[in-house]
């Protein structure tokens, strides 16, 4: 008999004794390749999956509930912890939503810096994706290479905002700091080396027989499936839909830069991998253009809107009214007009849902590579 106080395993209405020779396998939530805390209940016939049931909520930290009791600026650091692999992108999504609500126009230099941060974050996120997916599939070398390059990008962001992982580098109404002196030179140096690095990864993986066997024709998402599950990003573009939000509804300065949208109609793991590699190249292309834009911008960093955004520090120190405004903004927070905007919803959540349709028919080893290429981050799924 089980002791009353001992922790008991908890399974939701699942009977483990079955007569149809079906095995139920619990995958996660602590599986090292479950990219966080994904738990899958897999129904197996021999080694083949017949039914998959993803279970989320193991990293639910109650962020929405926290947000209810916070002023807008207070919540910003919490957005770092959603998609913690590319934190600035989350900061940006939140800041943009609030800015739309207020109707703020961000100064051009802030826009340029934001673009840089976003693309550097994209590179970091893609490199991390490559490193961990390769590790899950068994390519340790690519893991070490991927993290090597990622560390340089983290150094850059550390130079800019002081944090490696949780940046909070984008504020509502602009950015808090100008670029440090050597930032542009360092970023250029990194970008010059990047094509050679990407070629290194591709040399290691592209024609690698193990990689091809684990990736090609595994996890095929059809166009209809991708659209009906609400896939976004590479998950959608690998399935033959040429849709990129940066082109369709451009934000910041994405309508001023030249870049291509890589896409493929294969829909399998390999297509997604190729897409990520191509996107890194496009990111580098965008960054080169944005670096050139930086020179001819005026030095304002925060939008001028005394009702919502604190004045620059020099004004707060010298002018009484700015100080009063600042005091009110810090203690009570800004009060945007009543309205409706859409805050970013987590794409990973739907990409987790796809697994229900995607996994049946595959074998156990494929589960790991499919979870890898869906690139789900659980801070974002569960929040």
């Amino acid at each position: 008999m089980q002791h009353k106080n001992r922790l008991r395993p908890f399974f939701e209405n699942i009977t483990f004794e079955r007569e149809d020779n079906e095995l139920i396998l619990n995958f996660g939530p602590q599986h090292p390749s479950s990219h966080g805390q994904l738990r899958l209940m897999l129904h197996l016939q021999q080694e083949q999956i017949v039914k998959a049931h993803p279970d989320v909520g193991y990293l639910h930290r109650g962020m929405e509930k926290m947000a209810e009791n916070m002023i807008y600026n207070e919540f910003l650091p919490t957005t770092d912890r959603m998609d913690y692999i590319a934190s600035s992108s989350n900061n940006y999504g939140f800041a943009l939503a609030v800015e739309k609500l207020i109707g703020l126009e961000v100064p051009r230099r802030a826009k340029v810096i934001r673009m840089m941060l976003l693309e550097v974050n994209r590179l970091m996120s893609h490199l991390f994706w490559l490193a961990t997916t390769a590790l899950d599939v068994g390519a340790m070398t690519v893991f070490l290479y991927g993290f090597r390059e990622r560390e340089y990008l983290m150094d850059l962001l550390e130079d800019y905002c002081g944090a490696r992982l949780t940046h909070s580098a984008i504020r509502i109404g602009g950015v808090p700091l100008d670029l440090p002196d050597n930032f542009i030179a360092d970023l250029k140096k990194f970008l010059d080396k990047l094509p050679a690095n990407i070629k290194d990864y591709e040399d290691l993986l592209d024609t690698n027989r193990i990689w091809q066997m684990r990736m090609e024709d595994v996890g095929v998402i059809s166009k209809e499936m991708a659209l009906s599950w609400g896939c976004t990003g590479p998950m959608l573009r690998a399935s033959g839909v040429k849709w990129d939000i940066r082109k369709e509804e451009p934000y910041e300065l994405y309508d001023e830069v030249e870049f291509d949208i890589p896409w493929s109609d294969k829909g399998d793991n390999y297509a997604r991998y190729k897409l990520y590699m191509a996107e890194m190249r496009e990111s580098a292309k965008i960054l080169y253009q944005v670096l050139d834009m930086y020179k001819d911008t005026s030095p304002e960093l925060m939008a001028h809107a005394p009702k919502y955004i604190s004045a620059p520090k020099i004004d707060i120190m010298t002018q009484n009214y700015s100080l009063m405004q600042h005091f009110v903004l810090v203690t009570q927070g800004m009060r945007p007009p009543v309205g409706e905007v859409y805050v970013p919803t987590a794409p990973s959540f739907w990409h987790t849902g796809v697994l229900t349709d995607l996994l049946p028919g595959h074998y156990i080893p494929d589960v790991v590579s499919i979870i890898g290429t869906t690139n789900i981050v659980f801070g974002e799924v569960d929040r």
Partner: protein
Amino acid sequence: MAQHQVNYTQNGGLPVALTSIDKLVNWGRSNSLWALTYGLACCGIEMMASGASRYDFDRFGTIFRASPRQADIMIVAGTLTKKHAEFIRRLYDQMTEPKWVISMGSCANTGGMFNTYATVQGVDRIVPVDIYLPGCAPRPETLQYAVMMLQKKIRAEKADKSQKPKRLM
């Protein structure tokens, strides 16, 4: 039969070292701390970074293992939620003695910024913690320092009997 003769009074002396069992065992234990990968949230990324190329955890004899049965320390990296709490206890119980726990990051220490209905307010309510590591998220250097502190702690322990049951908060 020996073709050569070693003069033990010269040439660096006898090939013998005198030590105590405690020191010898603890030397071995502290220098091969195999860690259970327990990346829960953001800190897990920094934990991976400390295992990767630049920070290279292998130098300290810390190798990440995916199985609790092969691990000596559990690095709880990230927010522990109430839904997950039973799993961490079960994995901790599956680890073989002697075992240690490093609580990495503010969330694991005290719940950190997430003081909500869903979050366990400190992982020390579930498993006994040896080293608390502050930061949100702590840098890889901080994790390395925590492992070195744990090594120091292990070296001061007795090796001859199993450890005393540790206290939960």
